[in-house]
């Protein structure tokens, strides 16, 4: 693979990482910790929202993030023709 293409692939990969990790940070350290107290004034059913993010919600988001990453990368691999043949 030539240098230019390699660089473009890597740049795009890094962009995905940065975006996904920002979401990762916001749901856990943001909603679950730093702003948990403020969010607790909002309630879903019996859950104060900040508490819900800290003990349930962030975990669901983590799972979704990994599957989004997998599908983005599989597409990117194909587009740049660096995917693995069977």
């Amino acid at each position, binding site marked *: *693979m030539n240098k230019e293409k*390699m660089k473009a*692939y*890597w740049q795009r*990969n890094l962009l995905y*990482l940065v975006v*996904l*990790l920002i979401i*990762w940070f916001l749901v*856990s*350290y943001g909603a*679950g*910790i*730093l702003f*948990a*107290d403020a969010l*607790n004034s909002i309630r*879903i*059913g*019996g*859950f*104060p929202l900040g*508490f*819900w993010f*800290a*003990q*349930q919600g*962030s*975990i*669901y988001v*983590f*799972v979704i*993030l*990994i*599957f989004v*990453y*997998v599908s983005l*990368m*599989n597409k990117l*691999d194909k587009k*740049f023709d*660096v*995917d*693995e*043949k069977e």
Partner: protein
Amino acid sequence: MDVQTWTYIIVGTTFAIYIGIAIWSRAGSTKDFYVAGGGVPPLANGMATAADWMSAASFISMAGIISFAGYDGAVYLMGWTGGYVLLALLLAPYLRKFGKFTVPDFIGDRYYSNTARTVAVVCALFVSFTYVAGQMRGVGVVFSRFLEVDINNGVYIGMFIVFIYAVLGGMKGITYTQVAQYVILIFAFMVPAIFISIQLTNNPIPQLGFGGTINGSETYLLDKLNGLHEELGFAAYTDGSKALIDVFFITFALMVGTAGLPHVIVRFFTVPKVSDARISAGYALVFIAILYTTAPAVAAFARTNLIQTVSNEKYASMPGWFSNWEKTGLLTFTDKNEDGVIQYVADAEKNELVIDRDIMVLANPEIANLPNWVVALVAAGGLAAALSTAAGLLLVISTSVSHDLIKKQFAPDISDSNELWVARGSAVVAVVIAGYFGINPPGFVAAVVALAFGLAAASFFPAIILGIFYQRMNKEGAIAGMISGLGITLLYMLIFKFNLFGDTTSADWWFGVSPEGFGTIGMLVNFAVSITVSSLTKAPPQEVQELVDHIRFPRGAGEAQNH
């Protein structure tokens, strides 16, 4: 049938399954022994990773800790799951592409240095032995209560079982045993959780029942629990009492530690392709999330049940489980005001009941009056969790010794079959040392595990990340970084966790960071030292820079494995 008989039947059956699998899948070559031949399907790898990862601390201790800590339990829930996002995005695919056997292998090759490799081996041994000590202790706790054997004999039985499948089967045996162990442990965790959720909130899904209303009333469970807590003088359950900064640092240390644990990382070497490594991290987190989203529900249920059963009740009218656990010394009642009634309150002067947090999950089915077979099932689940993690760690220890020390440094010409014998021999030695720690436990299960995470966060994580994402990173930087990160974290633990240099209190902590959260600081020190030292010394050789280019895209992972 009584609990005892059920326990013998269920635990005996599960042990027979593990040994059967070990014999069926025994290792024939070093590649089988180290990375299960590199042919594990991603879904099976996800399950094995989940079992490998979920230890006695997750199964036995975590819900108990959360039920006492309330909101503060979030550090474990988010910390131990959020790390998988880091693993999937930042480590697993690249390490799989690199395609070697161990973490020290990566460090040694990426930093073109046997010194770096040896530092990494020392880190791996430190982390693994610290962690395995907690597991063996967990095995002892479960055995002593449910099989009513001496705690030491319990550890010996655990050693024998692990010995068979780790030594015989290596990674291949461990992988398929762990798949079975995952199924058993998740079943054992979910059955009582579902029963109790129905009993309390009439909702069969614990994750939802947790936010639901209590059976036959309009009151939300969490509101009820907050009310009970405040009545007895505790902080509200959903608010917690730890300082914000400490919650932040502990969560971070656990996440990064998770991503840096050698026995978890090595699992991603066992799948056929880079894309399999990515998706199997996703599957692993799904399987883990089933337990991790249930645990806080179990914690809240158990806490409510416990307070309602014991608080202000007559000691003489306590149910059977109360005296069963009193016998183990993990539950003690001192009638300070001699009124025959249990006062369970926040004020230490007046409180009469002391409960070890480790018993909450194990006692939960009894507290909720569930049938005996459920109680026995929980015992089997706890053992599955402890044994699967112990086996994974023992493998890291034996591989580090046989592959990274013997084969790579002392005897490069060793034949494959001799190396396999050395690997088995080191596994035997590791089992014996782990057993010693189980009999002479260095601390509480969860506390010791937290220590292992701090050490993993401070040593491996920066070296691997920089190795992949910072091409300019060289050996001088990596070695200095690992030594300083590990050193400062260890020093902090010795001062403030083990009080080696005199008694300390939380007021003495640096920047208000607890020993559990200090791995974050250790990691930052590692990053800073690594980058500084490497920018002052010369760039890594051309072929290493090409290696870094090479691991950044997935094609050709199959070939990489064979060099």
